[in-house]
């Protein structure tokens, strides 16, 4: 049984939550992009006490559930700081940290794709490690991996409703509240499903466009 009138009435309230979801994804992705690069560079370090722990941490975070990580950070940090760390900020931090371990692999592939000669030439020109990464290696490593990063952006968007488990007022949480008040779950949850389906299929089209552009500029 589908009630159109009810569906239209609750639509604005659910859409309000979409802003929160998108904000969480934007914040999380910024963190994932920066932290992922840091992981990738640290893994390439010749110092074993840097590269091995990095490998271990990335592997551990990647093989454990996001939901449990959210609970860990939210319940321990939020309790320790007595509410100073809001649910949304905990969520952004965990989303970013979790996905940084996936983007680290992407960066690694990108960095491995830069020919060895580039490093040697940079050394011959007496560039420091920082200068080599900043002006020689990264400008070549990053464009080819943009589509892969885009795919993780979509994946993060699909995981973002987990933030409702730590009381963030995102799309799913608002749908749940509407459902609990009216005892009608079909309309709010179907709206949420359609929102996610539409946005992720559209952004999937965006990523394949990006992929074609990147491939065209590489050849």
């Amino acid at each position, binding site marked *: 049984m589908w009630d159109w009138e009810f569906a239209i009435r609750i639509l604005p309230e659910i859409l309000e939550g979409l802003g929160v979801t998108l904000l969480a994804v934007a914040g999380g992705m910024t963190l994932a992009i920066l932290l992922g690069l840091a992981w990738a560079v640290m893994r390439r370090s010749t110092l074993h006490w840097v590269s091995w722990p990095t490998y271990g941490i990335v592997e551990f975070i990647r093989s454990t*559930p996001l939901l*449990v990580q959210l*609970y860990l950070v939210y319940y321990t940090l939020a309790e320790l700081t007595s509410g100073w760390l809001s649910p949304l900020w905990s969520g952004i931090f965990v989303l970013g940290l979790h996905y940084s371990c996936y983007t680290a692999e992407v960066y690694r592939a990108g960095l491995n794709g830069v020919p060895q000669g580039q490093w040697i030439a940079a050394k011959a020109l007496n560039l420091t490690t920082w200068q080599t990464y900043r002006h020689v290696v990264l400008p070549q490593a990053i464009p080819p991996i943009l589509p892969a990063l885009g795919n993780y952006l979509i994946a993060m968007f*699909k995981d973002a409703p987990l933030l409702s488990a730590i009381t963030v007022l995102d799309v799913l949480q608002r749908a749940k509240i509407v459902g609990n008040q009216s005892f009608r*779950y079909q309309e709010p*949850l179907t709206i949420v499903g359609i929102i996610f389906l539409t946005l992720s299929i559209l952004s999937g089209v965006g990523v394949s466009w990006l992929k074609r552009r990147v491939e065209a500029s590489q050849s």
Partner: protein
Amino acid sequence: MPAPFDLLPVLLQGLWVTILITLGGIAVALVSSLLAGLGRDSRDPIVRWTATIYVETFRGASAIVLLYWFYFAMPGLIGVSMPAMVAGIVILGLNIGAYGAEVVRAAIHSVPVGQRIAAQALNLTPWQTMRYIVLPQAALAATPPLGNLMIELLKSTALVSMITVVDLTQMGMFLRTETHRSLAIFSMLLLIYFVLSQCIAAAVRQIEHRLARGQDYGGAR
């Protein structure tokens, strides 16, 4: 037992549910990814479109939204409901299967065309070609990425705790309300999930090794 390990006996009560959902989900995911992966290249437009719609829907909507929809919304919408445990196994399996379908398809495409032509020259039927020539080689290419998906599946079983199933994660939530030892409980949970995912990774390496036997294509060791 010393401090964090005294939590283990209670937490492990949820372990069997998590393992059951993971194994059930893996079975559903493998079957659906094989069917959908083959179906997307079918010559029959109905089969092709069914497979495409399945893959796009179950990949496009997120796992948690799918779980909520099938568990809370579907009963109100069409009057059909299923137990939370079944919903967990089937929906998570179908979700990962949609990603697996693309893996299977890519693996089948990775088998050189010459293999099919040679099979035709040997007068094998299309079924025999698929069964004895293409699939054994595609299986080897598909194993590592499918293995990664199985670890994703294990991780996503934590979501069933949100639709009332008492799995590892839900056991941890119960313990938390009772003892308030959040740090110990959730660190312990992460550790258990990590051990489980390493088990899957080890099993996948074994399978890959087994499949690679007698093949000089696709990275035999």
